[in-house]
């Protein structure tokens, strides 16, 4: 057995022994994956998982390293990038991935990616055009 294999076994036994907790947070993540475009908040997620919201928050952060809402935002932004690359309008993209206002979507998008959705889309088009031109 290599050093890494023994470390994996040790970490598995010490950090991931509580399979009930792990199944709860995995189910929450799966719910976010399937319903990211719907209005989601901690209350909704805790009701779906039959778990108190503070407990869910603590467990999700412990096992995924971020809060459910941070995870949801990242998921929505990842999806929005795909739609923008495919030429969808900014407002249509915003609502389709579950954000409620184009201005807050735009601000969040810039904060997380470094560009506004319009600039991101423009860059994608210019890149694909230069490849086609070539």
């Amino acid at each position, binding site marked *: 057995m*290599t*050093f*890494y*294999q023994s470390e*994996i076994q040790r*970490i*598995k036994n010490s*950090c*991931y022994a509580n399979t009930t907790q*792990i199944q709860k*947070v*995995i189910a929450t*993540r799966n719910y976010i994956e399937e319903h990211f475009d719907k209005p989601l908040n901690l209350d909704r997620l805790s009701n779906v998982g039959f778990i108190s919201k503070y407990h869910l928050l603590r467990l999700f952060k412990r*096992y*995924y390293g971020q809060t459910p809402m941070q995870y949801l935002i990242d998921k929505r932004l990842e999806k929005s990038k795909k739609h923008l690359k495919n030429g969808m309008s900014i407002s249509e993209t915003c609502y389709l991935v579950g954000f409620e206002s184009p201005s807050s979507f735009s601000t969040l998008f810039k904060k997380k990616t*470094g560009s506004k959705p319009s600039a991101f889309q423009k860059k994608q088009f210019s*890149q694909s055009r230069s490849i086609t031109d070539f």
Partner: protein
Amino acid sequence: MKVKVLSIPVLDQAKALTFYTEILGFVKKVDVPLSEDSRWLTVVSKEEQDGPEILLEPSPKHFEPAKTYQKSLFEAGIPYTQFNVENAQEEYHRLSNLGVAFSIKPTEMGTVKIAVFDDTCGNNIQLVEML
């Protein structure tokens, strides 16, 4: 600051390019000759070609401490780098069928499933599927 290029030390760049493109499915992005036997050679994920580039860096060939470090990590089974996949089990089957050797078969570790393979260039690479 932005993360644009990450390095993977390789003993043989030509062999590494073949493995990372033909076996793993990455795409060559930049290939600039630097000297008779070394290139600035990067690959990117096929699904994320504007994402971070991996520099297949021949440091173990030219810099003895890099070679020693790489060898020690390899012998301890420690993966230097990890790649995310949609399905670790499927990727394990696909790569195994192409002759890739795994030191850790797909294993659940809490909220992820991991597997570790030998990239044939001196490194262990970890696959990660988020559960």
